[in-house]
């Protein structure tokens, strides 16, 4: 056990050093003299990096507005939550908190005033974060400019506005405890597992959410529809969805840090994760995450054979879809769906196109989308929206075509499904 701890400490030490060399915060003069404050600056830089890994900014900053001032609305099936101010303002932010209180919040889901946090704050994942990393994040958060902005009250419906109900939720879905390294796994695998299960809080979307707003541990990473956003977060454990078992490590790392790869691109909510968080992570950390993701054992989410009715639907829609594909899609995605890589993603043998849920391919045709502009892919190519130019029938036809052509194993898509998704929220 202590040996593993030493190993993690060394890993962290190396990473801090790498950040340091990248010139994140310090000058060479400070390195040479070990002047007072050097240690703090080092910790703050590491905290900033870890806050990126935890993607704090995505919820706690309104786009284009003041850093960590909170106030970003988050629609849930139970009402709207407003993220709190986590800038170091003493009255309205976390300026009076101690590192102990911050760790207790991350670790247990209790605020310093004793109130229970709603699980929109991913404390079920952050509980795995080490004390040292929590302290670094706290040091960073207290180093940014304070913003005086009072927290906006949550707008939760009865009975969900009664926070004591959260005690029941916690009993069912919350397991407190720091990350424990997997025995017999490499340091790289454990680093990836730590980031993905902890700060990365990937299971918040990639595990199905049930009617109580909880994600079941036994279904971890098996995929699910993200409530209120109408995007499907694919299974990370099924090779017919976003399971990465048959991807190369290079394709996984490219997808995570640039937003595009030769197997497909990120879009929807995952584009935000790459834009705000993953593009800033070190090559070593991204690789560690890729190694861990690739190792997840495949289970769940396997495709079911199409029913007789689905076959009829397909026979009707496929020829129309083929015609639309040739006219509207083939220029970029190729006559055989091979794409132009990595700019125009392949559609043939692309899990995202043929997986059981057809929500994402329908939405991409309706709404289009750009992968995120990242430091390694600053000028991404975009998919045009077709909501304004194709009818429900035409969209159903072309999505049916791409899900079943070229050996793809998807099921046909109905006109009704397309119509339902026309009103899906776009933000």
């Amino acid at each position, binding site marked *: 056990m202590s040996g593993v701890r030493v190993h993690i400490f060394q890993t962290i030490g190396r990473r801090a050093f790498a950040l340091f060399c990248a010139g994140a915060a310090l000058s060479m003069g400070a390195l040479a003299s070990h002047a007072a404050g050097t240690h703090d600056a080092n910790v703050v830089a590491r905290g900033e990096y870890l806050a990126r890994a935890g993607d704090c900014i995505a919820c706690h900053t309104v*786009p284009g507005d003041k850093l960590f001032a909170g106030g970003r609305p988050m629609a849930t099936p139970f009402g709207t939550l407003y993220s709190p101010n986590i800038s170091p303002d003493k009255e309205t932010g976390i300026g009076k908190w101690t590192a102990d209180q911050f760790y207790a919040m991350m670790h247990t889901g209790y605020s310093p005033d004793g109130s229970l946090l709603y699980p929109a704050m991913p404390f079920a994942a952050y509980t795995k974060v080490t004390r040292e990393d929590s302290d670094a994040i706290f040091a960073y958060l207290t180093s940014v400019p304070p913003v005086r902005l009072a927290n906006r009250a949550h707008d939760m419906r009865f009975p969900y506005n009664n926070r004591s109900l959260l005690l029941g939720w916690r009993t069912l879905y919350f397991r407190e405890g720091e990350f424990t390294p997997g025995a017999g796994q490499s340091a790289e695998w454990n680093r990836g597992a730590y980031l993905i299960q902890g700060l990365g809080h990937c299971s918040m979307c990639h595990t199905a959410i049930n009617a109580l707003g909880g994600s079941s541990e036994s279904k971890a990473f098996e995929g699910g529809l993200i409530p209120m956003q109408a995007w499907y977060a694919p299974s990370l454990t099924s090779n017919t969805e976003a399971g990465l078992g048959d991807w190369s490590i290079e394709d996984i790392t490219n997808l995570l840090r640039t937003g595009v790869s030769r197997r497909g691109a990120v879009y929807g909510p995952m584009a935000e994760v790459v834009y705000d968080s993953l593009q800033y992570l070190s090559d070593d950390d991204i690789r560690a995450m890729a190694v861990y993701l690739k190792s997840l054992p495949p289970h769940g989410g396997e495709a079911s054979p199409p029913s007789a009715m689905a076959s009829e639907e397909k026979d009707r829609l496929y020829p129309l879809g083929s015609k639309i594909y040739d006219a509207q899609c083939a220029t970029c995605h190729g006559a055989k769906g091979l794409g132009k890589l990595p700019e125009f993603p392949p559609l043939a043998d692309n899990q995202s196109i043929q997986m059981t849920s057809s929500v994402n391919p329908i939405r991409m045709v309706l709404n289009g989308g*750009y992968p995120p502009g990242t430091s390694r892919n600053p*000028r991404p190519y*975009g998919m045009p929206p077709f909501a304004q130019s194709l009818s429900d029938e035409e969209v159903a036809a072309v999505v049916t075509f791409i899900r079943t052509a070229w050996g793809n194993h998807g099921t046909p898509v109905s006109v009704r499904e397309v119509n339902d998704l026309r009103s899906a929220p776009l933000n």
Partner: protein
Amino acid sequence: MRYRFKWLVALLVIMAGHALAQDQGGEHAPDTMQARVLACAACHGQQGQGTDNDYFPRLAGKPAGYLYNQLVAFRDGRRKYPPMNYLLAYLPDAYLYQIAAYFADERPPFSAPTISSVSGNVLARGQVLVTRGDPDHRVPACASCHGSALTGMEPAIPGLLGLHADYISAQLGAWRYGTRTATAPDCMRQVAARLTESDVTAIAAWLSSRPAPADLAPVPRGTVKMPLACGSEAK
């Protein structure tokens, strides 16, 4: 001489290796802005000429600074139109500027102006407001900022021609009701607040009835001395 030749060979070998690495695994997308903005073309036309849809405006030839301000406002949600807010959400400033510059440099021809269905009196009122304003209600002429040819001014004041009446009145309405905002001082909000509904109809009808100007380019920065301070012009 011999040295120079060796360097050349080495360079060619490196370039060939690079080209091979690039070509590995097939065709790439064209490395052009035109290919990158295909997502915009679906509604705004490949050259940003606009389409038949009243609410998908012409972008071509508007100053890059104006287009950039709009792209940033859509990305950050200050200007609200969900399909645009969604498309731009994760694009960095530098890229948005390149997209703006691409459409600013395009000069596709105008489509024929709309035959207006409003009365001659309304059109006349529109012409007065656009060219002379309404001093009694402290409404400056559109031309006093957007230029006498109404083609806009560098770097950030848009041209007003080649747009559909419904688009123009929707924008003026959005400013009046505060759903479209610009950086403070928000001069367009001040102007729009002084307009009546019938003023908006008249301005939109007359502007959309105008033929294409001889020179589509916005006038250079500082050509027009503006009667109001505008935050979007700062920089």
